[in-house]
């Protein structure tokens, strides 16, 4: 969406409604958001305890939304599977649904570089819903961080066990 259109939306006050009018569509949600809402991809859970699963759990305190995004990663750090569960508005659900689609096949080092602006522009989110895409970005980062912490912990446990074995 062009910058001038966005400015118009902000000036008009109710960003979402004005954008709808400009786009010639009186609905509050863009078709892409509705699509993710009605046909969500990758809804579900992975086993939290699995050593190759990272779980990102984030919340939006202003509205009480919660979002869980999980990734299963192979030894090279490539995301082979991703699931999400989100309780919140359509934009939040769509953002996390899209996020799971985006990260599949990515290496974790690339996944953490995903910016909320990419998600927002793909879904054509109006300004009032930009924070939903931010939540999804945070969820991806949290999932990767969780996996790193898990792996660091298990490496530490392995190292300690080895040390004990050698001293014994």
């Amino acid at each position, binding site marked *: 969406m062009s910058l001038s259109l966005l400015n118009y939306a902000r000036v008009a006050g109710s960003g979402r409604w004005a954008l709808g009018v400009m786009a010639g569509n009186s609905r509050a949600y863009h078709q892409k958001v509705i699509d993710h809402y009605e046909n969500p991809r990758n809804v579900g859970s992975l086993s939290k305890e699995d050593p190759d699963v990272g779980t990102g*759990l984030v*919340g*939006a*305190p*202003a*509205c*009480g939304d*919660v979002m*869980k995004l999980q990734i299963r990663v192979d030894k090279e750090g490539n995301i082979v599977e991703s699931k999400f*569960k989100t309780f919140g508005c359509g934009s939040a659900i769509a953002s996390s649904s899209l996020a799971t689609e985006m990260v599949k096949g990515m290496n974790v080092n690339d996944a953490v570089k995903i910016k909320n602006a990419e998600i927002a522009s793909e879904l054509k989110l109006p300004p009032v819903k930009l924070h939903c895409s931010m939540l999804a970005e945070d969820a991806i980062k949290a999932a990767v961080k969780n996996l790193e912490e898990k792996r660091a912990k298990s490496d530490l446990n392995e190292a300690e066990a080895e040390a004990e074995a050698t001293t014994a």
Partner: protein
Amino acid sequence: MSSLRALCNRSRIVPWSVKRRWLSEIAGDEDYFTLLGARYGFSVDEDQLYQEHKKLMKSWHPDRFADDAKAQERALSMASMINSAYSTLCKPHLRARYILEVEGIPLKEDEDAPVDDMEFLGFVMSVREALENEPKERDLEDLKSQINELSNESVQQAEAALSQIKSDPEMKEVVRKQASKLQYLHRISEEIHKLTQVT
């Protein structure tokens, strides 16, 4: 004067002298607590709030000023404000959110979460997931009381932190954390309410 007011209540005719006193009684820029005569804090006497709202609306209902357009306009804005105040203060999570605004530490949508209480978020997530799986009525009742208990706890902790907020600025974070907890808990209550309505 009380008999005059009683006469007014019955007949809807309000003498200008009485009206003038009413119009001057509310400045129009009070905070919601002052407006409804409630003690500033996370817990309020909800019955007293209801009675005060009822009393104020009796005085300020625009219909009572039907014969004076200017006074009616003012009454309309007063009545709106009184209604906004009441609908905000009668719900704990909205009350909490309002207090954060008054204290200058509002919950904003585009801000990072005040405190990442992972245990609490995990709890909220698992509860909301469980609610999707057609819980039994008894389980819903148990959950309802558990959520009420947690909400009361948060209200008390927020209240305690608020009382120290001037002497200890770090209490601001505690207040925000407890107020955000109330927002999450309210969403759960809403879901439970929806589920119990269907049956």
